[in-house]
């Protein structure tokens, strides 16, 4: 049995690697480096479209970022038809108005909001590179023209960019000047439009409103897990009240197994799909005085061989 010692502490990505890359890029690109963000051990750099090729070449040839991760694009245009139906207007974290929030599917986000490092135009090209020796990665962005989005190809630097640029070309309509053969990768040749643009309608959602409103038969009370649960809770409360004057059991409830129900579920329309499995006591069945299991830190020492095997059954 092997010791559970930490094999190699995962080499923390030092911020100065990112800082070194950023300093170098700033020095070499000058004004053409528009903006940069360094947070959560990651680096985003926005360059002018004219400096796209030069920035990537610099990263590959001189900064050691020689692994090509991906190249893609973003359309920052707000999409009322698609994302509007998910707009949630209630306060974050408040649980009272969650259902009202779900009903509001007509609110429209009209403003175009850019992400990290900002942006001037609707389209941005996106490329991520990685250094397999120092384990740092950066994301490069470039603003593209709205009418004729175009940027120079990087196939001459990374041959693997071929497919990525073909995909971006057909999905976003970005032209990659100098690319040896921009032809369809996924879509059939006669396909019209650029599906990943925000103004490209998702037809399935046009004909059927989301979240898929369906006629669900009303579940009888005897089969409704929520009502069964409520009845059990009442019984347990009554039993607890008669058995022992234990402190209130509402203060620290055990962590329920299902904390994130799918948000589209409304209690009248659709019951939760799964009842608690028979092997596991539901929180309502367990005695109210039981303390929820304390959170233990992961052991760094080897567990003693004689320790009872952890069955991991109890949810509390």
């Amino acid at each position: 049995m092997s010791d559970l010692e930490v094999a190699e502490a995962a080499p923390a990505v030092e911020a100065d690697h990112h800082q070194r890359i950023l300093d170098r890029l700033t020095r070499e690109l000058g004004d053409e480096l528009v903006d940069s963000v360094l947070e959560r051990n990651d680096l985003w750099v926005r360059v002018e479209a004219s400096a796209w090729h030069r920035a990537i070449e610099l990263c590959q040839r001189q900064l050691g970022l020689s692994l090509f991760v991906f190249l893609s694009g973003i359309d920052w245009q707000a999409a009322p038809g698609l994302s509007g139906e998910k707009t949630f207007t209630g306060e974050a974290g408040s649980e009272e108005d969650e259902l009202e929030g779900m009903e509001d599917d007509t609110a429209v986000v009209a403003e175009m909001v850019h992400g990290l490092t900002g942006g001037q135009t609707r389209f941005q090209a996106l490329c991520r590179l990685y250094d397999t020796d120092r384990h740092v990665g950066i994301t490069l962005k470039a603003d593209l023209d709205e009418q004729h989005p175009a940027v120079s190809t990087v196939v001459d630097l990374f041959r693997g960019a071929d497919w990525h640029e073909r995909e971006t070309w057909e999905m976003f309509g970005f032209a990659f000047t100098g690319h040896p053969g921009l032809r369809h990768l996924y879509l059939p040749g006669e396909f019209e439009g650029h599906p990943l643009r925000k103004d490209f309608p998702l037809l399935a959602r046009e004909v059927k409103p989301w979240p898929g409103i369906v006629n669900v038969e009303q579940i009888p009370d005897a089969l409704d897990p929520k009502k069964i649960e409520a009845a059990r809770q009442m019984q347990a409360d009554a039993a607890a009240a008669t058995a022992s004057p234990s402190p209130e059991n509402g203060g620290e409830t055990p962590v329920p197994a299902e904390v994130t129900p799918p948000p589209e579920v409304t209690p009248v329309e659709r019951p939760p799909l799964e009842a608690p499995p028979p092997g596991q006591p539901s929180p309502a069945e367990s005695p109210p005085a039981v303390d929820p299991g304390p959170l233990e830190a992961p052991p760094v020492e080897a567990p003693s061989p004689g320790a009872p095997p952890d069955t991991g059954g109890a949810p509390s």
Partner: protein
Amino acid sequence: MTATLPDWRKAAYVASQAADARVNVEIEAEGMTLNIGPQHPATHGTLRIVARLDGEQVVWADPAPGYMHRGYEKLTEVRTYPQVTTLVNRIDWLGSFCNEVPFILAAEQLMGIEAPARAQWIRTILFELGRIANLTLFLGDMGVQLGALTPVFYAFRDREYVLNLIEGATGGRFHPNFDRIGGLKDDLPKGWLDEVRTVMVKIEDFCTEMDDLLMGNPIFEKRTRGIGVIPVAVAKEYGLTGANARASGIDWDLRRDEDLPMAWKHCDWKVWTHGDGDSFARYWVRLQEVREATKIVRQLADGLPKGPIMTKVPKIIKVPAGEAYVWTENPLGAMGYYLVSQGGLGPFRCKIRTPSFSNISILPWVAKGVLVPDMITILASLYFILGDIDR
């Protein structure tokens, strides 16, 4: 061979070859174009490869994916965060749980939360079980592509044990959909960890069996050694990751090198690399990877901490505005999600970086000049899942 024959015999020879071939063949004056797929056993799905042949040699080969494109990147934009895991389960369908983890980690990173220790450990166990379920099939299937039919039966037999484990814990054999933002859907069932230990022994035996069946086999060696050699620089240009990169000598594994809230850092295991970069090396590295995965699972099962499996998250998940790229070492290679949130209930944009996409994009380079059966070897050893290319 046809060059030395007179014209009428050449024509007769070509015609007889064409009649024999059970593939769609188009005869032309110089060489011929061979359509492999979209329905072909060697393509694991519906990948079509258009190959230009000169006799037995491939002049160029051009994969044509897209027969299974499902538009997940577009669909994520109309789904809420909890709904996306159902979608991404279908990307690499042999190791489905592994697809969920990087997405959940990206969302958690943006929300600034972390799953409790027990959830992290169970996630890692299921992740490695997904890896084993995926790679055992590769280890058997590679033999089939070379004409050795025995290994794949063992592979299907032993993968079944792992699938049963995954089903036991999550309820789904292929698509667990078990990971949640902030933790896991459920805790493990009673007695499951004992079962895991039993199965890990079986998987180790399976690895030994594959070792005995294929590694010393002269035919296997001849068909794989020196076939499809990929140098380090080319591998990096094409973005090869996972075992394909490690078989080319790149000592890099995201499980070890990326600081993720997962439990790999608590285990004692090793990253194997091979210097040859050929098909044999890719097979060998994956075989070692399954062995290491059994080690990881066993250590995690022994030291599984107690505690909750879910941290406090709001009932309706809203991810604060921001961007994050998180990737993990999946069975097929490095899989990542570039997640852009604008504070809504669903992703604003979710770029899915799949390993097979990059791994197969190298085929035109590596298949140039090889023989047709060797191209099948190379395809098998690069190892892809169609859903992982097409998304």
